C-alpha cells in the first residue's frame, strides 16, 4: 500500500548544522519574522507582536538566481502549534483527522513544520498558513535570518501538500519526488548539493 500520509518524520525536515550553511535559500525554508511586507504592511499579531516566523513559498530559483535586494519573495505566515486547541493541533500535525470511521484531510491550508533544534524560540511545533501569504523584500528576509533549511525530501512533502491545497489534487509523494528528480537531474544550473535521488541524468 502506498501511504497517503502527508509528512516525513520530523527528524527529516531541517538540515542539521553545519550542513545547513551550505544550502542556498529555497522554497520551504523557515525564516525569522520580518516587520513589514514589501508593500509596507505590518506583519504583526493583533496584539502588536511580530509574526512567529515565515516560510518561503516562492520557487527556489526566485530566491537564488533572481534574488536581488529589492526582489519580492512570497512567504506564508508561520504560527506556533502551542497557540491552538490540542485537537486542532493534532490534526494539523497529521494533516488529517478521523471522524466516524473516515480519515479525511484536515485543515488543507496548513503545513506542519516541526521545531528547529538549537533555535530557542522555535523548538516547538509550528505550521504555515497557506491562506496568509505576503511578499517580502529579499533584503529584509536575509536580514531577518534563516531559522531552518528544509531538506529536499521534506520539500517534496510540502509541494504535495500545497498542490492539494491549491487545486485539490491528491497525488502521491512518489510522483512528486519523481518530478523533482527529473527537474533537478536535468538542470545543469542547479545549486548544489543535490538530493541523492536528483543526480544529473
Amino acid at each position, binding site marked *: 500500500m502506498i501511504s*497517503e500520509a502527508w*509528512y*516525513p*518524520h520530523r527528524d527529516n525536515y531541517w538540515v542539521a548544522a553545519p550542513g545547513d550553511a551550505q544550502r542556498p535559500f529555497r522554497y520551504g525554508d523557515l525564516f525569522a519574522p520580518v516587520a513589514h511586507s514589501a508593500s509596507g504592511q505590518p506583519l504583526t499579531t493583533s496584539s502588536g507582536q511580530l509574526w512567529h516566523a515565515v516560510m518561503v513559498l516562492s520557487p527556489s530559483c526566485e530566491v537564488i538566481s533572481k534574488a536581488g535586494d529589492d526582489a519580492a519573495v512570497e512567504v506564508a505566515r508561520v504560527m506556533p502549534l502551542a497557540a491552538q486547541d490540542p485537537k486542532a493541533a493534532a490534526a494539523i*500535525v497529521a494533516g488529517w483527522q478521523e471522524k466516524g470511521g473516515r480519515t479525511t*484531510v484536515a485543515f488543507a491550508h496548513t503545513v506542519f513544520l516541526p521545531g528547529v533544534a538549537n533555535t530557542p524560540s522555535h523548538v*516547538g511545533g509550528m505550521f504555515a498558513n497557506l491562506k496568509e501569504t505576503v511578499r517580502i523584500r529579499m533584503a529584509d528576509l536575509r536580514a531577518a535570518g534563516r531559522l531552518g533549511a528544509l531538506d529536499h525530501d521534506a520539500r517534496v512533502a510540502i509541494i504535495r501538500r500545497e498542490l492539494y491545497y491549491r487545486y485539490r489534487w491528491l*497525488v502521491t509523494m512518489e510522483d512528486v519526488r519523481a518530478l523533482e528528480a527529473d527537474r533537478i537531474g536535468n538542470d545543469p544550473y542547479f545549486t548544489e548539493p543535490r538530493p541523492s535521488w536528483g543526480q544529473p541524468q
Partner: protein
Amino acid sequence: MGPDLPGETLDGWAAMSPEGSTSWRGIIAPADAPGTLKNTGLRNILRNSCWETYSWHVGREDMSPNLPTGAVAYGFAPAPQTVTSTDLHARTKEAIDRVRSGSVLAVTHYNEVEAYLLPAAWVRDLVERLEQGEALKRELQETLPLVLAAMQAGVAIPSETLRHIAPGLDDSWEAISDFVASYPLRLSGGENGEPLTRGRLRGVGGLPESGDDSELNFDA
C-alpha cells in the same frame, strides 16, 4: 412520512409518532436523562446508562409526552398493515394511496407475508443507506487498525474514535508526528468528506522561461 433517520435526536415523543399512527415498532437507545415513560420496560431502558439497543413494540398510549430530550430513535416505522393479495388486486389504487400516505402494507397469500409495499422514497432511502453502510464498512476496515495501533502506542492521533475509547493519551506534537509519519495511511475524503481526486503526475521535461519582476509594474 418516512422513517426517522437512524440516530436522529428527538425533542419529544410527538416527533416520533405521526398524526394518526397508533403503533410503532422500533429500537430505542437510552439517552443521558432517565425517562418518564409509563411503560416500565421502556422506562428501564432509558434509565440504563449503557448504549445497548432494544427492540420494542410500543403503543402510543404507553408513551408519556415527556420522553427526555436526547433520546435516540433508530429505524422507526409504523407497524405494517396487512392486505391480502386478492384485496390488493381488487383495490390496487386504494392500497397505493395508503402507501403514499406513509403506510407499510404486508401483502399476504394464504396468511403468509409474501411482499411488502413501501413508499418509493423509503426504498430509495434504504438503498442509499445500504450503499453508505457498505462504504463505511470498507472505510472502517481501513481506519480501525490505525486507531488500534495508535492506542497501543499510547499516542493521541487526531481521531474521534480514539478519544472516545482511550482518552488521555500522549498528545504532544512530537509523539503524534512520529506516529503519523511511520504509519501507512489511506485518506477517505477531503476536508468536508467530499470524494478525493487522485491523480498521477508525469514529467514532460524542463521548459524555458523568460520575464522578470522588474519588467512589470506592480503598483497599478
